[in-house]
């Protein structure tokens, strides 16, 4: 029952000659979080022109973190933080209400009929974790389906909640777009009533989003299969620049009558990363059920950390409920999304100008903060070692880290490290290789990939 502890070899601390062994001898060093490890490596690099394209935190064109003006105004209005615990409940409820309106639509039935159970959560991570624990508690035998690939922490979250996971096809490495046919197949073949995690916009890490038409088909199939859709909404506003537009997938599911679950994060779209503000909501039959579910969600969070920190919640509820500040926020979100779109176009043009024969259209096809570049692990390592450009091993580039000043350098570096790919491409073009999938986009400049995928749908 008790793990035997080993005598420590040869050490003795001068303060306690009797202490020979540690309780923690068998604790091995944890693997570094893959995303944070990139930042660590970046920070350790002394090179003055190093570039961090790792973590998905927005930067302005100077490469600086941004505190949004709407946040400053909200702070100005709320004055010194409201520390009184008595008002916490009211502010929390307000946050939930405003968050629900934002994602489900102010005029939606679920809002009017108050058919949702919601609690503030510790950003997107916290919202996902509470849901995972809730899922485990009330559907103990269930699994969760993740898109392949997905954000690296999803697996840890559901894993630590003891919910096993499976994947469904999502990203097509050849087309660098959506593998829609395989996606639909997997949805169809999953047992009825499975839990699925979906990202409604600006998919992390690929930047590949289904089209509206594809969402409609996915939603229909979900209805037939009675699957439970859980949406992880980390980038509302960041994909298109328009918060309503970015909520389309969810609105489609609502129209179809799904009772979904939703994790929302305000880390990126309000720049409130460090404040840990988010919301978990679950749609219900009616107000009564909403109260019951909310009580269960609260119990899970009470046991995990008590209540969520009030400062960030106050800011978000102020921003969303004050029309002037909200209007300002919407403008600022558009600015951020637009800058990223501009950097995508610029990076792609720069690569094409360098004469790269490789297909870079995915840089502008993909959406949101991230670009799944298609770079191999070896190329990523080379970028770090030789060019001091840091990104995650899967080749995910945080476009927020690209600026007008560094985009040419980034393009040149990518061009350099993909030299061997170019050789393969040249060989391919002269017929030395066959490419054999009809989903794959094989020629430069076509946008037929997703259209083809749709025609092959059920």
């Amino acid at each position, binding site marked *: 029952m*008790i793990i035997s502890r080993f005598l420590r070899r040869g050490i003795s601390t001068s303060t306690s000659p009797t202490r020979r062994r540690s309780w923690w001898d068998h604790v091995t060093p944890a693997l570094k979080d893959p995303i944070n490890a990139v930042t660590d490596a970046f920070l350790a690099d002394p090179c003055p022109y190093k570039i961090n394209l790792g973590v998905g935190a927005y930067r302005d064109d100077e490469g600086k973190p941004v505190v949004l003006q709407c946040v400053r105004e909200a702070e100005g209005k709320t004055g010194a933080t409201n520390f009184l615990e008595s008002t916490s409940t009211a502010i929390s409820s307000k946050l939930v209400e405003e968050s629900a309106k934002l994602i489900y639509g102010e005029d939606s039935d679920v809002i009017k009929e108050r058919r949702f159970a919601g609690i503030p959560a510790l950003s997107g991570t916290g919202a996902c974790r509470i849901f995972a624990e809730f899922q485990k508690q009330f559907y103990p035998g269930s699994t969760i389906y993740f898109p392949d690939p997905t954000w690296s922490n999803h697996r840890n979250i559901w894993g630590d909640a003891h919910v096993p996971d499976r994947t469904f096809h999502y990203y097509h490495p050849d087309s660098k777009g959506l593998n829609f046919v395989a996606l639909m197949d997997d949805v169809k073949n999953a047992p009825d009533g499975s839990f699925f995690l979906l990202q409604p916009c600006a998919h992390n890490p690929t930047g590949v989003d289904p089209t509206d038409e594809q969402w409609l088909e996915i939603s229909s199939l979900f209805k037939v299969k009675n699957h439970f859709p859980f949406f992880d909404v980390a980038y509302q506003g960041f994909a298109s620049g328009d918060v309503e537009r970015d909520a389309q997938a969810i609105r489609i599911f609502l129209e179809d009558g799904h009772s979904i679950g939703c994790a929302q994060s305000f880390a990126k779209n309000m720049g409130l990363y460090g404040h840990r503000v988010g919301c978990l909501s679950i749609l219900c039959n009616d107000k009564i059920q909403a109260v019951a579910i909310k009580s269960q969600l609260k119990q899970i969070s009470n046991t995990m950390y008590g209540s969520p920190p009030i400062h960030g919640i106050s800011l978000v509820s102020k921003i969303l409920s004050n029309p002037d500040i909200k209007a300002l926020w919407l403008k600022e979100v558009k600015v951020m999304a637009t800058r990223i779109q501009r950097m995508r176009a610029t990076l792609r043009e720069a690569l094409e100008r360098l004469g790269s024969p490789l297909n870079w259209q995915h840089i502008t096809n993909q959406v949101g903060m991230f670009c799944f570049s298609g770079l191999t692990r070896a190329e990523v390592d080379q970028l770090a070692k030789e060019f001091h450009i840091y990104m995650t091993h899967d080749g995910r580039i945080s476009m927020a880290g690209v600026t007008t000043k560094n985009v040419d350098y980034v393009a040149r570096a990518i061009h350099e490290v993909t030299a061997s790919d170019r050789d393969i491409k040249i060989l391919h073009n002269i017929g030395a290789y066959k490419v054999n999938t009809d989903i794959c986009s094989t020629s430069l400049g076509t946008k037929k990939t997703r259209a083809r995928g749709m025609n092959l749908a059920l």
Partner: protein
Amino acid sequence: MASTLLSLASATPSASLSFHEINKGKLNRGCMNKEKTNPFIKAKSFGRVSMVVASNVSRFEGITMAPPDPILGVSEAFKADNHELKLNLGVGAYRTEELQPYVLDVIKKADKLLLEKGENREYLPIEGLAAFNKVTAELLFGVDNPVIRQQRVATVQGLSGTGSLRLAAALIERYFPGAKVLISSPTWGNHKNIFNDARVPWSEYRYYDPKTVGLDFEGMIADIKAAPEGSFILLHGCAHNPTGIDPTPEEWRVIADVIQEKNHIPFFDIAYQGFASGSLDTDAASVRMFVARGMEVIAAQSYSKNLGLYAERIGAINVVCSSPEAAARVKSQLKRIARPLYSNPPVHGARIVANIVGDSALFKEWNAEMEMMAGRIKNVRHKLFDSLSSKDKSGKDWSFVLKQIGMFSFTGLNKAQCDNMTNKWHVYMTKDGRISLAGLSLAQCEYLADAIIDSYHNVS
């Protein structure tokens, strides 16, 4: 009316104890839907046409209300009461003599400074704000403590006491599977929930002696001795919640002896550093004594009460290890646990604490405010004791009111007597007989004394 609300509030968390003991590994607290299969697949009728295609029916149909929190339920009942002499002695939140919530001056200053600085809101590292982690460990162990100088403490910022306890619980579950945590009987209600949800088995050691309204020291020592070697012993560093009964320094030494002898791990929950005696250093004495013996210790801290930062959720988990290398490994695993819980902790509270504790002027001010708050509670204890002694002619020994320490006092009243306190006297308290002195004013001590005397003598 009030009593109906209270009967709801009287559901104790011990209900989950039996669930846990019986269904270890199968947490189904609150789950009424026993079917393993998806209810939608059976063509089940919900009063309309049974359907294969889902419409608006929720798959969480069978979910019932979670039991109300016994402590917060008291405040709700209090709010609903219109009696002019009502007293809320439920939740342990500090109130002024005017019974108003109190935002410390240092907090206002620190918060203003933060607003002016206008720092960015970037993610903290998973382990939290470095400046905070440094000062919080120093506050608990002492700036010059060898364990700090030798870098033998793994400190990770947590979400107040609750969140920090949860990190430690998860660490125990992962690295000491099957090991038990021993908690005092009684203890703070959420302790059991935290260990249940973290899937860590627990059992109780005797603590409160209703006969003496004091510490059952022999029972405590016997139960700690009887626990399987290598158990985790959860100790309240100071100002025990809910009893207010702390071991004496001599008793602490015996406790440490037994823990060492049985190869247990001491696990401190320090939620009231400063609130017990009024001195931050004095209140850390028990933890420091264990550490000075060279023991490896786990310690959870909270700034909810002593800095009034309830709403900001700021605390820390510390694991004192026998080497800096072990501390580094343990810290990495605490981070590994935190990442899928919430990725990284909230920044605001951490900055406030770092600014206060790290600034000598503000720190001094805080010490003074701490003394003031603890002082008010001591005064109230004295007044209550005087009122009880002078009004009660039965000769009952009320001195436990003075001996107990911190925000809470265990009155020794049983449930029926507590009900009488509420129903007849409009005094709101938890059913275990706990009153929060932080919610009592000098002006109302006599009234409270009347209520207690009446309930004790006239109700059984």
